[in-house]
């Protein structure tokens, strides 16, 4: 039952036992449908019912397509969590990959490695799609906290060697004002601007200033050093007081919330590694300019978590739920041209050194 046809899937998801029994033969919560051909579409009400049921399953659903999908199939195709296709297929939802089999296996091995995080990830994305951004941020934080208490994150914590948190001089964020423009620079170059609690606090303070002062008409965010932001500060993982306190902290002091509020006036300049928060936060801005060498990656599911800096709200709103789920589940990195093609960034332009 690992690779199904499209007609079969409509029948199988209609089963009252689908939630429990529709999964890969080894028990992995994964359904892969290989669409070798496009048969005459089922009646619209059959397709709608199948799409609805598919979105309710506690499994990661993957459609592999090999040619352009007929329009009639869009509702069903849109219900999948991930769509994989060769590069010549025209589908805004599809991850275009030179090696479709390898791409499909990348999803499968990621789901096998962290099934709880992977399923939670796609369920969160489905829920977030129909939510406002502030609501989606709350849902993300709840999911993140739930997974913080789970065995997959515990296993990652136990296996990873992490640097001890260091006390460091100076401010992790530099906020300056030039007329009506507020410039916010991440400034922990020695840690590739790892997103620490102190950086979060100062970033939020800067964004709140922009939120409080209507004479600030533009916010410009960039990063100092070799990378815009290499993600959450690994030295701080596992240091949250407890999962439920973590949720209250995230929703009390949320850079994502303020970036969304200020999105129309916010421009971000990214370069180097943009990992986790380093891509989640920029994705809220109305304009992102990426250096040609910038790379983008979401490693959280491989750590037994989901992105927690707002990325499950911001990234799908730029590139669509299916491509966002691909990035989150596989942890695959993409380069600046791919990010541009998918709409994750708006322009690719060499960074001017200041």
């Amino acid at each position: 039952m690992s690779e199904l046809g499209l007609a079969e899937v409509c029948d199988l998801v209609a089963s009252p036992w689908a939630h429990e029994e529709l999964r890969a033969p080894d028990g992995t919560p994964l359904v892969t449908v290989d669409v070798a051909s496009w048969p005459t579409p089922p009646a619209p009400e059959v397709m709608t019912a199948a799409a609805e049921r598919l979105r309710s399953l506690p499994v990661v659903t993957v459609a592999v397509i090999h040619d352009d999908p007929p329009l009639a199939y869009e509702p069903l195709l849109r219900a999948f969590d991930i769509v994989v296709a060769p590069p010549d297929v025209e589908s805004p939802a599809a991850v275009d990959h030179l090696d479709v089999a390898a791409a499909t296996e990348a999803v499968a091995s990621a789901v096998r490695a962290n099934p709880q995080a992977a399923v939670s990830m796609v369920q969160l994305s489905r829920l977030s799609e129909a939510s406002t951004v502030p609501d989606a941020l709350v849902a993300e934080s709840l999911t993140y906290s739930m997974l913080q208490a789970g065995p997959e994150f515990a296993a990652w914590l136990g296996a990873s060697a992490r640097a001890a948190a260091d006390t460091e001089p100076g401010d992790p964020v530099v906020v300056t004002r030039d007329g009506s423009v507020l410039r916010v620079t991440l400034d922990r170059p020695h840690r590739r601007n790892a997103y620490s609690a102190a950086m979060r606090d100062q970033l939020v303070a800067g964004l709140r200033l922009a939120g409080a002062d209507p004479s600030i008409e533009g916010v410009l965010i960039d990063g100092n050093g070799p990378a815009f932001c290499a993600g959450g500060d690994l030295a701080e993982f596992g240091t949250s007081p407890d999962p439920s306190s973590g949720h209250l902290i995230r929703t009390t002091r949320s850079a994502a919330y303020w970036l969304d509020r200020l999105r129309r006036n916010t421009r971000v300049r990214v370069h180097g590694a943009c990992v986790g928060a380093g891509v989640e936060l920029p994705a809220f801005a109305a304009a992102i300019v990426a250096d040609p060498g910038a790379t983008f990656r979401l490693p959280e599911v491989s750590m037994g978590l989901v992105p927690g800096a707002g990325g499950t709200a911001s990234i799908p709103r730029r590139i669509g739920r299916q491509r966002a789920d691909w990035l989150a589940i596989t942890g695959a990195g993409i380069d600046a041209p791919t990010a541009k093609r998918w709409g994750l960034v708006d322009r690719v332009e060499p960074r001017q050194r200041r």
Partner: protein
Amino acid sequence: MQLRPGTRLKSTVCATEVIVVKAPADEIEVTCGGAAMVDPPTAPAESGTPSSDAADGSQLGKRYVDADDSIELLCTKAGDGSLAAGGAAMVLKESKPLPASD
């Protein structure tokens, strides 16, 4: 001067500008660098310098309060003068650092 939340004030002796976050019910004089702050559109060109006992500066994006927390200002442009309300120096109101949530 009667203040309201959102009222803007500008220093006459340095670059400091603030927005009122919380206003007292009664009139109060706000000074920066020892000189009364004014409505920005009517502000004269900066002249003079902050008096030496009020020259610790103001910091961009920081909030300042008086001792009994009746007035709160947000600094929207930094300057060399320090803020006072009703003749008493205002103090920096720092947001409490919160732990990591990871």
